[in-house]
């Protein structure tokens, strides 16, 4: 017999398809909870799938559906794999927030871990291990240990990952696992081996990861081709930590790996290159041969990569890295491969421009200047600016060829303002290094299209430094005086005006006077600037010649500090790592796990707080069930009522116990009434206990038992060894129960609802007590 009302409740129309992602309101979660609860007893797997799917859709959207945890736990007893997979996904996601309820789910996971089908064993184990709460460990470890020696590799590889998961929860449970993991490296299945390597690296991270012996290296290299791309890349990455004991071994390994450079998977190619580089890093000649050898595969990957732009970008970053380490001439021949193409995104073009700047040399410069010149007029301003910077960088690096570049840059002045702005900045750097180019820059310097703040400062610097050679210098400087500009610019202006004054005093005297006046008589002027101006003013009054002498001992720049720093730091970057991409050393962008744990905990707390706030603002939430049961399970002998935590804002709760006389004798209601009440009430209590006695766990016995305690049965049904019954009763208010005995799992489940939540708790306790007395539960 099926519950005669359950099916009618479940006939709430199923969610319309395609609506999973619409609606975003939290109130819907309550509706969803009811929907799930009601659909549980449904026979139709298709309908159930739809409901579970809806829950996952909400979860994906980031809506917190953790309230439905108890219902989803119950739903996990299904044999339908489609549902099971979804439900397990849900359970593993929310187990962390529902630690105590998660116990309910464990038994299903455990059962599935013993299934005859290895696919299901592996699947269940993977999910069991993903339940992220410490209490699960004791159930986990036996399952993992058993599965590590499972006959099927799918289960074994899952078990290894399980070890890593346990390591992050409670590492002490993993005593001596390393030995077993090392043994598993000789497994037949490649994936088992790779997972064992990953596991060892994580578990032994403090000691620098897995230990590599020559024997192990030979063994892994011998089997290299059995592994998929990712496995190979992992092994090669391990290998890069290894140091061959002599040249013979080194060359043997390198010869063996050379053909892997022909692979289309960039992960493998880069990993091989890293091995080569690390092996030969103390042998400059061989190292250079290595760089020459790996050029072609790198260029190929950088120009094709199956149209995978993201990979192209990564490869280009690595090429730039190699070129910037002093091997730029290796790529000089292939300069055309680094020309920008119309269909490439900006990030690729930018890195290509940086590479071009690095690999420019006497024989390719002619072509390259034309090409870079074209980019200057690109519609994308970023590209335009970068190409000007590239030209500047080449001029700095190749002083012999700088003249041509300066001339070319000067020809851009008639174009857009942003071009002039950028050119001025580049000129400043070129002139700092080699002042002789000033004669080619005159035209652009005296044009009036400099608009950007930094460019103005660069211009002011140039005017000051080369004041004697620029006819209009004093008058251009004059235009900046008294104009609302940044303090930084005014500092530069002060310096430059003084410099020009020393070489062109007659023209500058009045202008300098204007400047002093505008700074010192401005009430709102920066105090530091004012002081500086006053200082110069008085010094000039005192002894202008002495100041001039001091000032004119200029500094000659041979090398730019910025350049040196970058290169030095770059030597420490690890090839094939994010350092190469970001151009930062690893400690600048990697933080330890604790840092993120704190972030996460904070996030979790915020969430709980938010929930509690909304709980107190609205009505009590079923999430509270969790707290209740927590105390119930861990300290089963202490009565709940006394131990009720105050967290729940229901501290007013009467500290009383219900006795049989509180209940109305022979209270009767209609089925329809029960249905409507059960659906409309969404606050209640729920517990799960282990079934202790089988002989009375049947419909008749239960009905009699509840009757004796003045609770009356309204529906009952049994299927697949699961007995489900609904009861009701009334004391100060009505109470409704859903009662389930699952003989498969030996569990007893009780859901209680009432219009007043406190009474639901009391009634729950009342039932629990008499169930204990009858020894049905412990």
């Amino acid at each position, binding site marked *: 017999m099926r519950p005669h009302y359950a099916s009618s409740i479940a006939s709430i129309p199923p969610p319309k398809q395609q609506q999973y992602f619409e609606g975003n309101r939290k109130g819907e979660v309550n509706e969803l909870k009811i929907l799930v609860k009601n659909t549980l007893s449904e026979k139709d797997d298709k309908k159930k799938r739809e409901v579970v*799917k809806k829950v996952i859709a909400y979860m*994906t959207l*980031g809506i917190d559906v953790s309230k439905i945890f108890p219902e989803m736990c119950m739903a996990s007893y299904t044999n339908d794999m*489609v549902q099971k*997979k*979804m439900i397990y*996904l849900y359970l593993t*996601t929310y187990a*962390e927030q529902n630690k105590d309820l998660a116990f309910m789910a464990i038994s299903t996971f455990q059962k599935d871990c013993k299934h005859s089908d290895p696919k299901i064993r592996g*699947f269940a184990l*993977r999910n069991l291990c993903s339940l992220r709460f410490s209490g699960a460990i004791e159930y986990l470890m036996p399952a993992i240990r058993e599965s590590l020696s499972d006959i099927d590799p799918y289960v074994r590889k*899952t078990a290894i*990952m399980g070890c890593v998961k346990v390591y*992050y929860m409670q590492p002490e449970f993993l005593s001596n696992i390393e030995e077993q993991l090392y043994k598993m490296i000789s497994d037949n299945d490649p*994936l088992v081996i*790779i*997972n064992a390597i990953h596991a060892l690296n994580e578990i032994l991270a403090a000691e620098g990861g897995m230990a590599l012996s020559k024997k192990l290296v030979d063994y892994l290299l011998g089997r290299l081709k059995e592994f*998929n791309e*990712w496995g190979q890349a992992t092994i090669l990455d391990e290998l890069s930590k290894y140091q061959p004991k002599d040249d013979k071994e080194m060359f043997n390994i390198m010869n063996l790996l050379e053909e892997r450079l*022909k*692979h289309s*998977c960039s992960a493998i190619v880069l*990993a091989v290159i890293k091995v080569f580089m690390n092996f030969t890093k103390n042998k400059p000649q061989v190292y250079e041969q290595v760089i020459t050898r790996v050029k*072609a595969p790198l*260029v*190929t*990957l950088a*120009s*094709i990569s*199956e*149209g*995978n*732009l*993201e*990979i192209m*970008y*990564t490869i280009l970053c690595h090429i730039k890295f190699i070129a910037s380490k002093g091997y730029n001439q290796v790529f000089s021949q292939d300069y*055309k*491969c680094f*020309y920008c*193409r*119309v*269909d*490439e995104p*900006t*990030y690729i073009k930018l890195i290509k421009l940086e590479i071009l700047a690095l690999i420019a040399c006497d024989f390719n410069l002619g*072509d390259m200047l034309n090409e870079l010149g*074209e980019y200057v*007029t690109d519609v*994308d301003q970023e590209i335009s600016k970068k190409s000007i910077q590239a030209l500047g960088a080449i001029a700095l690096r190749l002083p012999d060829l700088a003249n041509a570049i300066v001339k070319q840059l000067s020809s851009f002045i008639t174009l857009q303002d942003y071009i002039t702005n950028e050119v001025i900045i580049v000129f400043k750097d070129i002139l700092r290094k080699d002042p002789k180019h000033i004669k080619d820059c005159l035209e652009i310097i005296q044009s009036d299209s400099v608009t950007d703040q930094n460019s103005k400062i660069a211009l002011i610097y140039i005017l000051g430094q080369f004041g004697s050679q620029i006819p209009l210098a004093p008058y251009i400087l004059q235009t900046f005086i008294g104009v609302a500009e940044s303090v930084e610019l005014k500092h530069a202006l002060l310096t430059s005006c003084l410099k020009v004054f020393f070489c062109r005093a007659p023209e500058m005297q009045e202008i300098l006077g204007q400047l002093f006046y505008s700074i010192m008589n401005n009430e709102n002027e920066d105090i530091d600037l004012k002081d500086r101006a006053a200082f110069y003013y008085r010094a000039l009054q005192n002894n202008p010649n002495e100041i001039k002498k001091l000032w004119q001992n200029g500094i000659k720049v041979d090398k730019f500090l910025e350049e040196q720093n970058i290169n030095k730091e770059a030597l420490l970057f690890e090839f*094939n*790592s*994010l350092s190469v991409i*970001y151009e930062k050393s*690893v400690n600048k*962008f990697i933080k330890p796990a604790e*840092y*993120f744990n704190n972030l*996460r905990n904070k*996030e979790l707390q915020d969430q709980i707080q938010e929930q509690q706030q909304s709980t107190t603002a609205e009505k009590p939430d079923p999430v509270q069930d969790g707290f209740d049961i927590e105390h119930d399970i861990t300290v089963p002998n202490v009565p709940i009522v006394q131990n009720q935590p105050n967290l729940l804002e229901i501290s007013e709760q009467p500290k009383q116990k219900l006795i049989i006389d509180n209940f109305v004798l022979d209270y009767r209601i209609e089925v329809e009434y029960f249905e409507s009440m059960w659906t409309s009430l969404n606050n209640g209590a729920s517990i799960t206990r282990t079934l202790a006695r089988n002989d009375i766990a049947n419909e008749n016995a239960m009905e009699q038992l509840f009757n004796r305690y003045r609770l009356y049965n309204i529906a009952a049904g049994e299927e697949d060894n699961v007995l489900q019954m609904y009861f009701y009763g009334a004391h100060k208010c009505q109470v409704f129960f859903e009662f389930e005995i699952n003989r498969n799992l030996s569990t007893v489940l009780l859901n209680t609802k009432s219009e007043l939540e406190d009474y639901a708790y009391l009634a729950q306790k009342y039932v629990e007590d008499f169930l204990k007395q009858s020894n049905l539960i412990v």
Partner: protein
Amino acid sequence: MFSQIFILSPRGDTIINRDFRSDLPKSTPETFFRQAKTYSGDANPLFNVDCIQFAHIKRGGLYIVGTSRFNLQPAMSLELLDRLAKEIKDFCGVINEEVLRKNFILIYEILDESFDFGYPQLMATEQIKPLIVNEPIQPQPDSVMNSLRPKIQTFNIFVPNTMGSQAVQRSVLNKNQANEIFVDIYEKLNVLFNSSAYVINQSIEGCIQMTSFLQGNPPLKLALNEDLQIGRQQGQYSAGVILDDCNFHECVNANELDMNKTLRIQPPDGQFVVMNYRISGDYAAPFRLFPIIEEISSSKIEVTIKLKACFDAKIIASYANIRIPIPKQTANAYPELVKNAQQETAEYDSNKKIIEWQIKKLCGGQERSLKIKLTLQATQTAHTARKEIGPIAMNFEIPMFNVSRLQIKYLRIEERGNTTNPHRWVRYITQSSSYVCRI
């Protein structure tokens, strides 16, 4: 390895969100999207925010993102995401927002088999296939990525825009599908002309791509041109097909390539690229552009562009779009087609200051031309403005044509057994990658 993997829509909505290691904040999708939007163009594939590493690829407009707190191997992480995208494509037929939303449960399944605790696990389509219980839900036929192709093609991965590709847009889970294999030779051309139609730079990037629906993954033998040569010696001239360099997929054994120009392939299910190659040598460009600029007066310029299709008359380019940037100071522009022009349009986009010239079909040997009359604003003279015209970028696709002459001589299916002879479809497609004429 990866801590989380999520897939976001172009607007930043989360479509898929899987947290493997629970060691990073849950708000990473928002963090990612906010950062990605700070770039003026596409975001860098790899960046970090507050020491959280983000690796992402963009496919079908969607962001496929992996996060981590470790110093990842950058290429590996992007290759993994790319592999994931290919798996999704194999199972769902195509990859776009609608399909992902409809199949999100299936995608969670794929994700869970592909990654465990963020480490790559089974990543080959045929390995995962037996573990998948959900069926793919096909999108409504009328909404399949509406067949309009973008006016100016964004870089897409060797996906033909016009050729009937419905056949390969299928799920590998489709049970009653034919036992067949599709082989495509794609070539992307990169040509740079100067104003006198002289080629400054040219190269070809090509690949042999297969989409296998073969039952039982039988080994294949693929034979290429007999005059094929890999690696170019400096200054060498040869009549044969010379590839500068090439690389191969994991499933390919290229040991016999030098000897008898054959590749042995153990094909996985679904789509994969057998071989990539690049050619830097000279080749006859399939289209030639001849721009002529005349200053009619100080405020008027006339631009004439001639296009010539320099290939066999039997070959038909399925489209050719040409884009001509004109000066920012243009007051007005009138593109004029030749009288009786058919299947041709020319439009002036006054916001972007671009002339779009679109030709629907073009047979080999034919010539087309376009005249543009420009009127400038008073602030600029024709003499300075003409510098701002161009470069002209061209975009096309030519089916059943390839420039390199790389050919598939035969594709043999070994160990065929008793089953019927599977269908083998071979196509050649040539597309423009960067086909530019400077003025």
